[in-house]
């Protein structure tokens, strides 16, 4: 049994606080029994360390191991530039498909056409007048509808041009970001190899 103020084995393994360590230092300087115990512990450790570590017979390599390769979607998901590029490509495709689609105005309900010919007590002049009036109304409606469609088409063209400009700007930003990231990665790799 050691007479040291603190556990001699804690002292031996450097697990004491500085203050306690100094106390044991002082004790050991004056105590032959504890000094002898420390020598025995040191000899034991030296004997054990005479059986050295070995090199593993083979390297544990993972790069070529399929288990460790991320799935294609994981690769994309975890890569900002790739994800951005895919998103931009999908957006472009959606815009192009949308632009190619023919514009179809909503089908208006067919106007109620009165059959005047069969109406009793109407003269030919009255009939012609009514027909001219109906034709004028129809032409007027069609002209208004044409103007409406034309205005909508112009607005869509404008929107598409704006989207393409925005897309181009995003591409430029992304290209710069990728350049910066590759530069950072190259410098990080250099640091690791150094």
């Amino acid at each position, binding site marked *: 049994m050691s007479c040291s103020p603190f556990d001699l084995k*804690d002292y031996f393994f450097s697990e004491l606080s500085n203050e306690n360590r100094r106390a044991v230092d002082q004790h050991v300087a004056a105590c032959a029994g504890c000094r002898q115990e420390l020598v025995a512990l040191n*000899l*034991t450790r030296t*004997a054990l360390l005479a059986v050295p*570590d070995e090199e*593993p017979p083979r390297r544990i390599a993972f790069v070529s191991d399929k288990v460790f390769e991320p799935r294609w979607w994981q690769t994309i998901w975890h890569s900002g530039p790739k994800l951005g590029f895919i998103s931009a490509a999908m957006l472009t495709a959606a815009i192009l498909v949308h632009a190619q689609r023919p514009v179809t105005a909503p089908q208006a309900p067919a106007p109620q056409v009165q059959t005047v010919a069969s109406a009793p007590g109407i003269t030919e002049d009255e009939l012609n007048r009514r027909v001219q009036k109906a034709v004028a109304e129809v032409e007027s409606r069609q002209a208004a509808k044409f103007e409406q469609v034309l205005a909508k088409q112009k607005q869509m063209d404008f929107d598409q041009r704006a989207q393409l400009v925005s897309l181009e700007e995003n591409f430029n930003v992304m290209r710069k970001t990728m350049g910066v990231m590759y530069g950072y990665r190259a410098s990080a790799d250099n640091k*690791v190899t150094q």
Partner: protein
Amino acid sequence: MIFREVEESDLIARARRQDVEAYNLLVSRWERRIYNYLLRLVKDREDALDLSQDVFLKAYQNLGKLEDVSRFTPWLFRIAHNEAYSLLRKNRPETDLDASIEGVDWGEVSPGRGMLPVEVSLAIESAMSRLSADQREAVVLKIYQGFKFEEMAEILECPVSTVKSRLYSALDLLKDTLAPVQMRGVE
């Protein structure tokens, strides 16, 4: 040392984002220590190598669950400890673990590839074979791997007092056998 720790946490962060290259670097840093830890527990090179592979695979798969990156080392050794004990239990399910490890032939690993005096080598084998599995692992973690008591407690999932008790009782047994032999070697 601080630089290395920072760099290591960076590698772990990258590995958590499925960066295989970063994880490969971590493996190359730790494979020797993990292999030797396992070798001293299971005493078979092929088993130790297979277990090392399993350890790094499981670590990679569970890296996301590691809450504190600074605890990577004890966490990795905890996985290795579990793998080793799982194998030892599988090999000898009908007996208790201490008995199964004591059944291992310590002479299989030639210490120091013939560099050691035979007397010391035999004495180490003999002394180690008298320890329980828990005591032996405590010696391996402290003497060969250089862990602090706190880290050992984390790896073994037990209180520091238990760790110290196992280690110190083992040292008392080893000291009685090895110190006189080593002393004669020095003389």
